[in-house]
């Protein structure tokens, strides 16, 4: 049974969030720049960062908005990208101090990002609202602040740099998927399958009419299902440590 920890204060949360905030500033900066480069008004990436507070989903969102995708495509694509939050939210729900109210839970839910989840879950004691509020607040400041800087800076950047920055987001995604693919054969198989499907939909004449949003959904779902049934994961370490 985990116990409460009086050292996990609000200011400790703020401090633990600082490295996240620093990382977020640069990514959000790129997000602000890309959004404006894609023709969106400068206020819109800021509003997106304030209301969404997520990385991949926001990048995909502005891609789809700029491509004039339908609301259904935007909703489905982002929902699929965000499905991983279900697991993080679930896992976090069992680390919270018992008796935490609905309002606090709903507020914390907004701050569940990959990085915040990773930092929070490393703590060995139960997590209180104050610590999580600090952790989320400093990370969120970095995310929104970086977006504002990026949205305002894009008009100052030369065209050659903007062209080069077009690859920044994709490079970041590559950095997310390649290291796990090195250590896990199932993950590598899922990635290869998804790439093959995506290319198939892009280059085969009969299939290429499908819009990019649906291609991502279909490729992601099919590759994950293949991975799931060929390599269902055994009980993970975290769970064994809990027992």
């Amino acid at each position, binding site marked *: 049974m985990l116990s409460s920890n009086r050292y996990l204060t609000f200011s400790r949360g703020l401090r633990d969030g600082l490295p996240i905030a620093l990382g977020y500033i640069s990514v959000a900066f790129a997000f602000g720049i890309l959004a404006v480069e894609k023709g969106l008004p400068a206020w819109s990436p800021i509003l997106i960062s304030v209301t969404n507070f997520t990385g991949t989903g926001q990048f995909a969102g502005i891609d789809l908005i700029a491509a004039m995708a339908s609301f259904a495509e935007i909703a489905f694509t982002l929902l699929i990208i965000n499905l991983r939050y279900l697991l993080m939210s679930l896992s976090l729900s069992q680390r919270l101090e018992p008796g935490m109210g609905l309002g606090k839970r709903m507020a914390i839910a907004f701050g569940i990002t990959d990085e915040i989840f990773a930092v929070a879950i490393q703590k060995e004691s139960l997590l209180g609202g104050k610590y999580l509020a600090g952790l989320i607040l400093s990370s969120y400041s970095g995310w929104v602040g970086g977006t504002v800087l990026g949205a305002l800076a894009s008009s100052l950047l030369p065209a050659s740099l903007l062209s080069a920055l077009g690859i920044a987001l994709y490079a970041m995604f590559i950095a997310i998927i390649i290291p796990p693919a090195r250590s896990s054969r199932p993950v590598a198989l899922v990635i290869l399958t998804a790439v093959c499907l995506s290319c198939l939909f892009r280059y085969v004449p009969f299939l290429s009419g499908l819009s990019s949003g649906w291609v991502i959904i279909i490729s*992601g779902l099919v590759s994950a299902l293949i991975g799931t049934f060929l390599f*269902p994961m055994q009980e993970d370490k975290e769970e064994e440590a809990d027992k």
Partner: protein
Amino acid sequence: MELGRLLLAIGVMALVTYLPRVIPITVFRKKINNVYFKSFLNYMPYGVLAAMVFPEVLYSTASLYSAVFGTLVALFLSYKKQGLLVVAIGGTAAVWICEQLLTMAGVM
């Protein structure tokens, strides 16, 4: 771009981002122990991300050559387990340098 449409799209994005975050933490108190469900949630982000990157990344810059070069550099750096920032900057720098050279050679 129409203002109402843009605001609505942002609202949709916020909603489908918040829902998966808020539902389990407020509703479910038990762990899901279905191996297939957990596996699927684990693999899916990789499939989605991979499909988002390829082949789109090849058309993300002003020239196919610079995009291919930038992609190769990003693949190499991430294979060497460099962080997100290093890979993003490395890929961007590779594209920029490549495009400067292409311009000088008169290809672009």
